[in-house]
């Protein structure tokens, strides 16, 4: 088989490049913990109101000033709750699920983003380093009111 020398080099370089990307991403994900959202558990979206956790979504303080959990329901066409408050520098774990169709949850200006599917509770953590107002928006088409589906996170100075 005839392969041009330059072309052989080129292929070797592209394999090396690809391997470098793969390793970098793997290290970032599995060693440094820059991870994609994971599955918390499955739930029946029709029964969310019977569930002690989901009948009362919102912020739970786990360790004051250090760790918070946010339970969030996406439904047509709003998030519940629509406004939350957490202190700066605390680890915030978001648990998000849908009560009806597919939605998505993205906090603008951060890396937090996930698909929100009925039947599945997704989990992702984030630490806000700057105080201020962050909007979270629905980034998956969910019907006619999709563009108006958003909420606000108030990140306050720690006491």
């Amino acid at each position, binding site marked *: *088989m*005839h*392969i*041009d020398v*330059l*072309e052989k080099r*080129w*292929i070797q370089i*592209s394999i090396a*490049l*690809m391997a470098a*990307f*793969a390793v970098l*991403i*793997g290290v970032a*994900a*599995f060693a440094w913990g*820059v*991870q*994609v*959202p*994971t*599955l*918390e558990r*499955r*739930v029946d*979206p029709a029964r969310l109101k019977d569930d002690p956790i989901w009948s009362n979504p919102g912020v739970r303080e786990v360790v004051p000033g250090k760790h918070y959990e946010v339970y969030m329901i996406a439904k*047509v066409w709003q998030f519940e709750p629509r406004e939350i408050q957490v202190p700066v520098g605390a680890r915030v774990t978001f648990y998000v699920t849908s009560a*009806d*169709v*597919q939605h*998505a949850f*993205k906090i*603008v*200006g951060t*890396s*937090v*983003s*996930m*698909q929100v*599917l*009925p*039947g*599945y*509770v*997704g*989990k992702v953590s984030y630490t806000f380093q700057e105080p201020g107002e962050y*909007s979270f*928006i*629905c*980034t*998956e*088409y*969910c*019907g*006619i009111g*999709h*563009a*108006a589906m*958003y909420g606000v996170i108030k990140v306050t100075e720690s006491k």
Partner: protein
Amino acid sequence: MAETFRLPPSEKKLIVWHLVIGVVAISIGGSLGLFQILNHGGIDWYGWLSKIGIKNYYQGLTLHGVLNAIVWTTYFIMAFLTFNVVYGLKQPLKSAKVNWLGFWVMTLGVVLAAIPIWLNQATVLYTFYPPMLAPWFFYLGLALLVVGSWIEGWGLAWTYFAWRKANPGQRSPFIAFASVLTFLLWQLATIGVAAEVLILLLPWSLGLTPGLDVELARTLFWWFGHPLVYFWLLPAYISWYGYLPRQAGGKLFSDTLARLAFWLFLLLSVPVGFHHQYLDPGVPPTWRYIHALLTLSVVVPSMMTLFTVVASLEYAGRKRGGKGLLGWIRALPWGDPSVAAQLLAGLIFVFGGIGGVINASYNVNMILHNTTWVSGHFHLTVGTAVTLTFIGIFYWWAPYLTGKPLPVKLARVQVWLYAIGMAIFSQAMHALGLLGAPRRTPLGNAPYIPPEWQGLLLRELIGGILLVTGGTLFIVIAAYFAFAKPKERVTVEPPVAEALQDPQLTPAWLDTWRPWVVGAVFLVLLAYTPVLLDLVQNMVLVTAPRIPLW
């Protein structure tokens, strides 16, 4: 290749009808793009559009996605593959009737799916994610569209394998080989969406099943959804490898590596669907990472393609007297709109490719997922690399099929306007996405838009207007070929490229089907079985909400 082969009338008619439907589809689909950019720029014309049936942004966007990304591409591609097999083998189809049957099944499917979209009953976007529910005949239409394309592809494979049997030991001509391979990829890819539609969506829309699992549906969809983009791209590559070198005045640099690249695309483009599901909770992260690795390995055949295409063009440019490191680029026949379209498409695709590697990078994806970055990306790829290449092909093909000369000056303007408009439009979309602007959203009506995004939305609008103007000129040129009666007649010889080296020297293992096909099927099973089993065992059945959603 002195002997001229004339396309038999039935094959010619079949090709022409595919092109007619494809061009009508992109004319309507592309026009709807105008209303999207206007909305983003703060000008809402949907009130006016509702008079002709498009009641809202999302209904228009559903049509835009379906007509551009599914109907235009599939019809153009099936026409091009048919031509490549027939003209490449210098042989009529085994049975033109089979291919006509496929065409009619496909077209019936398009009509069945288009009616509910037009009536605003299937405003589910071209991904039709459940549990949004469309009428059952929308799903039936999709199924027929896919099955019709299979029938056509089987007709092509039949013709091709009969040729091989009659010509043992001969390398099959590259354009015919690559076209059948493209269909094979489509066959493997569409199994996923066929399963989604026939097992999950259609029975559910008929009320036969209590509900379905949305993650399972998404997984089957993206089994299809990613290789779909290779079904779009490979025909463009066939043109870059198999025609463009000749159009530029040169030869294909390496027939061997062209075939190897195509086999690698077949192997690597299906078992990678989870890279569209990096942020889906229901797919285990390890599997998402495995698909990320497989996705990144597509870099290798892509870089091979870049090398071979550039080397072929450089060979052509130097033969035309181009000197120095880059002088050969200027020496290429830029004045030929067909060549200019493909060169610009290829150039823009470099940026599409870089963006693709970024999208594929697992956790990096979190920043841009579901943002306008992604729309910016696929307008560079399917919207330009593919569509502008198809337009370029059209510019020699339509004169060949109709005998009418190409309006060269108009076509030149068309190509440049489209490319420049797209570059501006897409750059703005990418930048907006990095700021966090969501895709699939009428940004002009969203309450959360910060003032910093306005400048970019305006840039998107300006680029988009140039782009729409370029697109409109293409429709004008297509209409000229359909309706005008110019006095002048032309005869065009299809510019099929020869390879620098006799293809007979290409090793036989690169022109052998079984091991590659077995390998591709094996990889798909390996990449999907564990996750599919897990999803099926843990299904959460979900039903459609009772309130109207749009």
